């Protein structure tokens, strides 16, 4: 939870620092709620700031979030028969951390398991949106030194990369 709020906060500060748009907090919240992807929330900021084409943004999103296409695979069978609207929400809220929690969930009963996944999604989404909004508001209101905050994105990638490397080598070696 702390992680979600803090990361969202950093993303919000970055958003409001780099993109000059009225109601930055509102847009930051919208971005957080719609994409629910920490990586994208950071990575989408530079292209928007330099007014890149929408095609470029789509391509960037595709590259960054390609891994999400693999997250659904283990969930297909588990979420079979869930009402459509709820399933859409579950799919929408399938980010890195939520996926990790869902996958490691040991609840056997299907109903309880789906309920667990849903609660996971609702809470993480709420924390993430709250963090992003607060961050963007704080970034606008306070003179937080934002020079160099772009590094948060690189650091996030690096941490994910290190984690993956660890996983890869522990599995193989």
């Amino acid at each position, binding site marked *: 939870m702390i*992680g979600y709020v803090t990361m969202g906060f*950093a993303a919000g500060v970055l958003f409001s620092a780099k993109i000059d748009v009225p109601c930055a907090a509102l847009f930051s919240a*919208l971005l957080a709620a719609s994409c629910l992807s920490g990586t994208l929330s950071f990575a*989408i900021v530079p292209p928007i700031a330099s007014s890149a084409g929408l095609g470029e943004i789509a391509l960037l999103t595709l590259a960054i979030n390609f891994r999400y296409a693999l997250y659904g695979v283990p969930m297909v069978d588990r979420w079979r028969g869930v009402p459509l609207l709820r399933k859409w929400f579950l799919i929408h809220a399938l980010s890195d951390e939520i996926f990790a929690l869902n996958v490691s969930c040991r609840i056997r009963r299907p109903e309880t398991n789906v309920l667990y996944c849903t609660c996971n999604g609702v809470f993480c989404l709420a924390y993430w949106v709250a963090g992003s909004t607060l961050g963007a508001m704080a970034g606008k209101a306070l003179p937080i030194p934002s020079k160099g905050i772009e590094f948060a994105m690189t650091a996030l990638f*690096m941490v994910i990369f290190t984690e993956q490397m660890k996983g890869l080598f522990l599995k193989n070696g």
Partner: protein
Amino acid sequence: MAEKVLYVFSAIAVGWAVTFLLRALPFLVFGSGGEKPRWLGRIDGFISPVIIGGLIVYSFSSLEWRTPWPYVALAATVAAYLAFRNSLAGIIAGTALYMALLSLAGCMVPVEAAPESSARNPPVRVGRSGIAFRGRHVVPDDVPRLLEKHGYSREKPLHILVDDDYDDKRALWVFKHNYIDRAGYTKSVWVHSQKGASGTVGILPKADGVKMPYQNTRSRGR
């Protein structure tokens, strides 16, 4: 401003659409009881690090990658992450160190004096062979980025040289509107080259009294 709001809104919408489609992909493909191919499980562990590795390199483009600081901070990120076994610790430590290094060592990074745009020295040139930025051919998309990178001021007039034999006024207007005005350089002026009496090619601005059909008609300042 409304344009900008719409743009940011549509950019977020694009991000959302692509993300959701990606997430829904397995459900669409295997949802109706299709067989999952075995290679899927195998590439999962392999393809993600490749993508993330590429993203790290990509993200360096928005950092001061010519200085040693991002590399130092990157090492600190990994060290803190491994030491505390906490991704947040790594991110905060690395970012804080990078920001500190950047602000402390800012004076060590040579800062080029911001170049001045003038009628004799226009940064952008438009002609039949295309668009040139400081003597180098570029695509129009790159112009706003290059102007920003070289530190041209949005507050001062920006001179755009138009070759004498170039008369596609519509293209000029579109270029100015889409790439110059939209990037915030609203004080651009057209400049035309004229052959001087001595035969040397000098660059002179059109006299102020002559109104060009495609001259900047936007209000200057507010």
